[in-house]
């Protein structure tokens, strides 16, 4: 049995976009084709990424905006196909990338749990068995039978986290989930992630929150313009990354607070 849960071999992802972004209308496309004014721009999101992650390890991916962090996660999940190289994942994967994916605001919390379960590839019976656990963790109480448009943002996010982490998977892929809810709830989240680690689940996560990555992950990988700048113990990598950011910016600043996470919760 191979000891590596996640293995990236020279993974590159390139795509072509028309130079002014995606052409959005057929009319424009036709005119440009006819007048031969079609220019393409190559976007290189990942550029030869190679790394191996042993089973049961927790790896946090850091890097500036647009460094390819989310792309890397999406290649691992199979949402994007690389244009070069191979990514191999050994073990069952929880395919959810962002919290709240597929939430339907007209439906109740309960209905959304069942729908999200289907999205995660789990049976209705399986999800029904977990509902109480999810409601309990998300602290929703009787709100579970109200449409989620009546929820507060905090409640939606808590529900999303509870659903995404009520899984039996060998590999968990998480995008921006560490800064969820208030401090008390964050503590609960961290405890749950720690439980996963104890169970031997391999976790790959992306976050802007360096502080949280340092706390949660043993390993970190630093991406810079689609290339691996370094991989090793989380604290060291984060330190290197901070130094680099400070150098680039001229002053040392807290990059941990650079942007608020987007949970992707849209109707």
């Amino acid at each position, binding site marked *: *049995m*191979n000891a590596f849960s996640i293995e990236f071999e020279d*993974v*590159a992802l390139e*795509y072509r*976009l028309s130079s002014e972004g*995606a*052409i*959005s*209308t*057929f*009319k424009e*496309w036709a005119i440009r084709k006819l007048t031969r004014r079609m220019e393409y721009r190559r*976007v290189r999101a990942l550029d030869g990424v190679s790394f191996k992650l042993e089973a049961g390890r927790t790896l946090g991916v850091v890097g500036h905006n647009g460094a390819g962090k989310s792309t890397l996660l*999406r*290649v*691992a*999940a*199979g*949402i*994007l*196909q*690389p*244009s*070069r*190289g*191979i*990514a*191999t*994942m*050994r*073990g*069952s*994967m929880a*395919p*959810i*990338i*962002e919290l709240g*994916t*597929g939430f*339907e605001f*007209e*439906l109740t919390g309960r*209905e959304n749990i*069942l*729908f999200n379960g*289907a*999205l*995660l*590839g789990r*049976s*209705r019976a399986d999800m029904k068995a977990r509902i109480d656990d999810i409601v309990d963790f998300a602290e929703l109480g009787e709100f579970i039978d109200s449409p989620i448009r009546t929820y507060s943002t905090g409640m939606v996010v808590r529900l999303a986290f509870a659903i995404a982490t009520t899984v039996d998977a*060998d590999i968990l892929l998480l*995008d921006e989930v560490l800064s969820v809810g208030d401090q008390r709830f964050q503590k609960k989240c961290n405890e749950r992630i720690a439980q996963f680690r104890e169970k031997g689940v391999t976790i790959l996560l992306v976050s802007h929150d360096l502080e949280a990555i340092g706390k949660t992950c043993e390993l970190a990988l630093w991406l810079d313009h689609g290339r691996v700048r370094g991989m090793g113990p989380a604290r060291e990598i984060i330190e290197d990354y901070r130094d680099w950011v400070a150098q680039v910016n001229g002053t040392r600043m807290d990059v941990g607070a650079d942007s608020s996470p987007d949970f*992707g919760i*849209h109707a």
Partner: protein
Amino acid sequence: MSEAALQPVFVNDAKHRVKTLEELRDLAAHAHLLQTLVQRDITVRYKRSFIGFFWTMLNPLLLMIILTIVFAHIFKFEGIQHYAVYFLSEYLVFGFFTQTTVQSMTSLAWNGGMMKKVRVPKSIFAISTTLSGLVNLCLAYIPLFAIMIFQGAPIKATVLFLPVAFLIIGAFTLGVSFFLSALAVYFEDVSHMYQVATLGLMYMTPIIFPISIIPQKYLWVIRINPLTHLFKLARDPVYLGQLPAAHVLQASIVSALIALVVGWFVFHRMSRNFYHYL
């Protein structure tokens, strides 16, 4: 060794090209998601408004009243008994076709966010839209049968052919949905252009009027229009109380298969780059 054999391995290789068979298998593995998507479509549609459910019933009824007044009393098409039944027996499937194809475009764009975050077979959205459209279509037959009873139009056993008609019309609709929804990801104006086109389609198909009023020189337009044959599959068993003629059935099956195969491959080919456009 045995543990390694049990462990699922997922390989995301740049050189791999997804084949049709593989995608079909993937779809089969997501049958539960498909069922849930259809259920969600239907619940969301009927949930909030009490009128939602009745609207599906009311819509054809109101249309019938308007069109019966206009065409049965003002324009007076010769030789059409039970005009409302004549019109609705075909208009319902036409409505299913246009609504489903239009919705498949928005559904793919709407669920685009989801596709960027979870690995799901992309064709699942067109399929679920078509299936929920079929459920609504079946519901829309309740008021039609009510009108038939009310007007004293005979309901023959040939209506049992309807499921077969729905299957063929559904396959054609799905094929067109595949094609249009893939195009709509790249070009947002496709949906507007198509809505205009559906108006044209309505007049290229004998839905409102009998085929007999068409001048000889334009008849070919109606004849080459696959919708003419497809929708006849639904009208004949209900309005005429006859099974559709063999050549109508053949033409319908052939056009449904062509639409499905072409639509599938166009979608399949174009879906590779969806991510960057959604």
